[in-house]
């Protein structure tokens, strides 16, 4: 057995163990901590599968952003999870049946196929993006991405709706107490320039190499959150019209681009000549909107009156 196979087996076992630990942990905080480790191990797994795009998203959104949201939700949850679990025979049997069925299907797959890869690569030249993942996400399967963005927007509307009536439209997030000239204030000044450059680089490089709107948006969201934590800028008022346009601009432009395609054929189709311009425009708008949405999801509902 060679070294990389041994590494992969150890990685798989670790992922399974940490996943089990996260589900079974008595203490919710321990569960969240194990979930963060799970996300990082999964990222390594995606890198091993040479799916660097997915690895980037898993690290940024799965391990990073989701964990922050879960940690923020902890104080509002009961300290103990419902452990020891009550075994429900019917649920157990149906879970095992579904799991066995899935195993049977996966093992029974005829032979390792290359999936849709040849079809994607055949059309890649016309797609406007030389990174196959970006071509699939924004051209061939634009619907998926559009719906993902719509889900994010709906989630944000849901979070905002849980504001108390007298705080509606006010500023979200906790009040920050930062020592002027202290460590956090300096860190908050040092990092954003680098973060903004890295974010713009990620979205630009997304058309030709691993990267793209979601990865870049997470970096930019983190930069904005850091600037707010360091009290360099205040959280925005949620009633602000500019903020709402910022959040909606990406999905709106995506739909507009889709309608533009409708004039020349079908919804969300691009002509080969203009495809690159359309994809880059939509990616840029999506990046800004997703970045704002992710940061606002972390900040939560309005807490201070407007």
């Amino acid at each position, binding site marked *: 057995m060679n070294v990389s196979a041994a590494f992969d087996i150890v990685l798989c076992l670790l992922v399974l163990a940490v996943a089990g630990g996260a589900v079974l942990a008595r203490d919710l905080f321990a569960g969240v901590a194990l979930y963060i480790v799970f996300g990082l191990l999964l990222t390594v797994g995606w890198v091993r599968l040479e799916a660097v795009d997915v690895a980037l998203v898993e690290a940024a959104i799965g391990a990073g952003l989701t964990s922050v949201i879960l940690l923020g939700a902890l104080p509002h949850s009961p300290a103990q999870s419902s452990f020891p679990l009550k075994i429900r025979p019917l649920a157990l049997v149906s879970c095992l049946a579904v799991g066995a069925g899935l195993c049977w299907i996966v093992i029974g797959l005829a032979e390792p196929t290359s999936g849709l890869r040849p079809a994607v690569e055949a059309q890649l030249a016309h797609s406007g993006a030389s990174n196959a993942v970006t071509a699939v996400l924004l051209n061939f399967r634009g619907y998926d991405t559009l719906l993902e963005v719509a889900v994010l927007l709906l989630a944000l509307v849901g979070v905002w709706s849980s504001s108390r009536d007298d705080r509606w439209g006010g500023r979200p997030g906790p009040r920050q107490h930062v020592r002027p000239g202290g*460590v956090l204030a300096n860190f908050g000044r040092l990092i954003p320039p680098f973060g903004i450059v890295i974010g713009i680089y990620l979205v630009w490089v997304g058309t030709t190499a691993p990267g793209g709107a979601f990865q870049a948006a997470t970096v930019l969201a983190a930069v904005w959150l850091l600037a707010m934590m360091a009290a360099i800028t205040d959280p925005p008022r949620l009633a602000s019209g500019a903020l709402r346009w910022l959040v909606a601009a990406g999905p709106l432009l995506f739909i507009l681009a889709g309608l533009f395609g409708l004039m020349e054929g079908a919804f969300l189709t691009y002509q080969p000549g203009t495809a690159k311009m359309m994809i880059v425009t939509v990616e840029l708008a999506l990046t800004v909107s997703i970045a704002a949405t992710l940061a606002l999801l972390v900040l939560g509902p309005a807490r201070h009156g407007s």
Partner: protein
Amino acid sequence: MIADVASCLTVSFGLFFFLAGTVGLLRFPDVHSRLHALTKADNLGLGFIVIAAAFQAADVWTVFKLLAVWLFTVAAAATAAQLVARAALSACQTEEPNR
């Protein structure tokens, strides 16, 4: 060949410091000692692993990128350590359990 040997050596150094940091995290009595073990030892360990990766790098730009990764991590870890330490300190002083 020489580069591989150098990589192996520096990775081993790095792993030693990670191990030491982890043992410290598990064994030291209070927040500040644990924080000290974790951030100091891990930063050094990551530095050695970055050096090991630099021996395998294809060109000089990759070395610069690795160095940038290390510098950002050190800056973030140092800041986080300061903040956690201060939060723990004020929690001790006010005798309130710090969540």
